């Protein structure tokens, strides 16, 4: 995505702690009003990147621009950002109102303007009845809403979220996720959101940046990332349960491995040609058809059912295909039994193929 007027721009960013390089020559452009999610397993540098943008860490090299202003050396408070932390980070000795107005008081804002902004933010987040309370008298979800409110009153262009929902229980997490999405639609601010939860990433993001070892592996909208992962790491990381992989080789437009032989007609390659090479063949569990649906597929096989996980909306089947364990997503109220043979099949257009040497998409 090229943008003439990006909200946040990161140029050739390097960061190392002593000898350990955490971020390496990282470039990123975030459009105005965009919701960008930084996704990755722990230790991939996503929180570090967010802290660099916030100005809480000094960068080793490169530049950071926010609203076309070079803020590489600016104090966090001068960057026009608001930040929400995983641990809420509310000031325990201050009331909700005190927490939300602390930043404004530091900026020397007039009292009535502070009051107006706090009330406005409290209205948006339904915090009005709680303004006089201390954080210790709030539930986890309320605390996180106050933390969001604290960022909101600052009336900034860029919001930074550092795993804001990770400390909440599953139900509350879903509720607050929707609330954050609604907030974004309402405010139209730029939001940068760090998480290791792919559901949060897929549901919230305009674009997802998947990071590993301080390098952005893929930066795309959620659908593209899901359907056309650029390398094997991304393919494996996104999707739960994970993608099935078969190791084999491609010759003359068809793939063969000990388990699977399939004609690759219908598969869209990156550069339009299908090379002859050793390759990983990837297929998502929901793209494996089972039972009668499977009979017209380009590949048809039989697998022995080992474990059945009924999830309500669908059923997850762990089966063995020629000795290799595979995951198949079947329909919700299925009557599959352990030990039965399941007829499975899939087509070439849903596949993801990666070169074994480079692990890049073919």
């Amino acid at each position, binding site marked *: 995505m090229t943008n003439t007027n990006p909200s946040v721009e990161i140029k050739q960013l390097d960061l190392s702690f002593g000898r350990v390089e955490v971020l390496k020559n990282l470039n990123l452009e975030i459009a105005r009003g965009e919701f960008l999610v930084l996704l990755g397993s722990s230790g991939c540098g996503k929180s570090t990147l967010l*802290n660099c943008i*916030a*100005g*809480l860490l000094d960068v080793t090299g490169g530049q950071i621009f926010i609203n076309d202003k070079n803020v590489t050396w600016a*104090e*966090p*408070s*001068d960057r026009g*950002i*608001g*930040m929400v*932390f*995983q*641990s*809420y*980070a*509310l*000031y*325990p*000795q201050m009331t909700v109102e005190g927490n939300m107005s*602390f*930043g404004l008081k*530091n*900026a020397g804002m007039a009292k009535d303007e502070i009051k107006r902004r706090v009330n406005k933010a409290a209205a948006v987040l339904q915090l009005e009845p709680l303004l006089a309370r201390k954080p210790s008298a709030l539930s986890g979800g309320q605390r996180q809403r106050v*933390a969001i409110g*604290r960022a909101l009153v*600052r009336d900034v262009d860029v919001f930074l979220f*550092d795993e804001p929902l990770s400390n909440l229980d599953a139900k509350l997490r879903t509720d607050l996720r929707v609330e954050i999405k609604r907030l974004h639609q309402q405010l139209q601010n730029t939001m940068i959101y760090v998480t290791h939860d792919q559901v949060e990433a897929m549901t919230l993001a305009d674009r997802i940046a998947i990071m590993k070892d301080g390098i952005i592996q893929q930066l795309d909208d959620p659908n593209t990332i899901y359907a056309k992962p650029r390398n094997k790491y991304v393919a494996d990381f996104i999707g739960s349960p994970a993608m099935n992989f078969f190791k084999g080789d491609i010759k003359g437009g068809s793939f063969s491995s000990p388990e699977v032989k399939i004609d690759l007609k219908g598969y869209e390659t990156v550069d339009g040609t299908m090379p002859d090479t050793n390759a990983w063949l990837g297929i998502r569990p929901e793209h494996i058809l089972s039972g009668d649906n499977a009979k017209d597929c380009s590949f048809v096989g039989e697998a022995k059912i080992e474990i059945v996980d009924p999830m309500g909306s669908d059923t997850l089947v762990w089966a063995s295909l020629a000795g290799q364990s595979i995951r198949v997503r079947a329909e919700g109220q299925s009557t599959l039994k352990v030990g039965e043979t399941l007829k499975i099949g899939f087509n070439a257009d849903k596949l993801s193929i990666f070169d074994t040497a480079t692990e890049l998409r073919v």
Partner: protein
Amino acid sequence: MANATATTIEGPAGPKPKRAFSSTNIIIYSTLFVVCLYYLLPLYVMIMTSLKGMPEIRLGNIFGPPVEVTFEPWVKAWAEACTGINCDGLSRGFSNSIWILVPSVFLSIAIASVNGYALANWRFKGSEVFFTILIFGAFIPYQVMIYPIVILLRESGDGITNVMQFFYEDAPRFRLMGSLSGLVIVHTIFGMPILTLLFRNYFTSVPEDLFKAARVDGAKFWGIYFRIMLPMSLPIFVVAMILQVTGIWNDFLFGVIYTKPETYPMTVQLNNIVNSVQGVKEYNVNMAATLLTGLVPLIIYFASGKLFVRGIAAGAVKG
């Protein structure tokens, strides 16, 4: 799902019964009782003796309560007992000790808490080395430093005098050696290693996100210290205060070396009263003087006991 119907249930059910007189309890309580007795008996003897007159003491029954209660020894210890050339009792030492204690405690805690905060939250190049050196200071025996400090105080006192006389010819001689302010400086410096360690460890246990949030909110070094860290750290301040009050109040060595008879702290005066070799040993006065001297730390402990325990625990549990 099994249908739970109310039927008679067998075996252990409900709360586990507790026995009041189990053998463990008897052992625990009797041990505690003996330990209590061990610590309280001397105190009892002291209080009783201090309330007796000399004739009664000469009878030798140290455990018996006074037949005739008299507060004369307390008055004498406070206002009349002779220490060297002064005969105004412990009252002089008490006020000296207060003049030493209050500024020393305030200064050492103020400086050490800022030290600890900076070392915990504003890491700078070499901050770890600085910290290590500071902690190492805690292990150097005091005796090694006594004489160097004498010279240091004397010379820096003269230095200040010179500077003052440079600007103002009639400036009086400023003394650090042998004055209360010199002793305050010594106490402040010697409190630094342990207090800095205490505060640094406490501030390290405060979640880092809180510090980051305050920075995003535009608070600076002092703003974060006074508005965020200080209000959160009352327990550790109480711990530091107790450590310093008892340490400085009970100090004898520095008091006797770096002051002179007019400015002796209470402990030194107490020693001079109790250990005087002239005349009759006035045990009742000695006991009263000792109790008076021990009163300040005792009051501090009682007044802040709960906070003290909370502070000690806070350092260990949080984080």
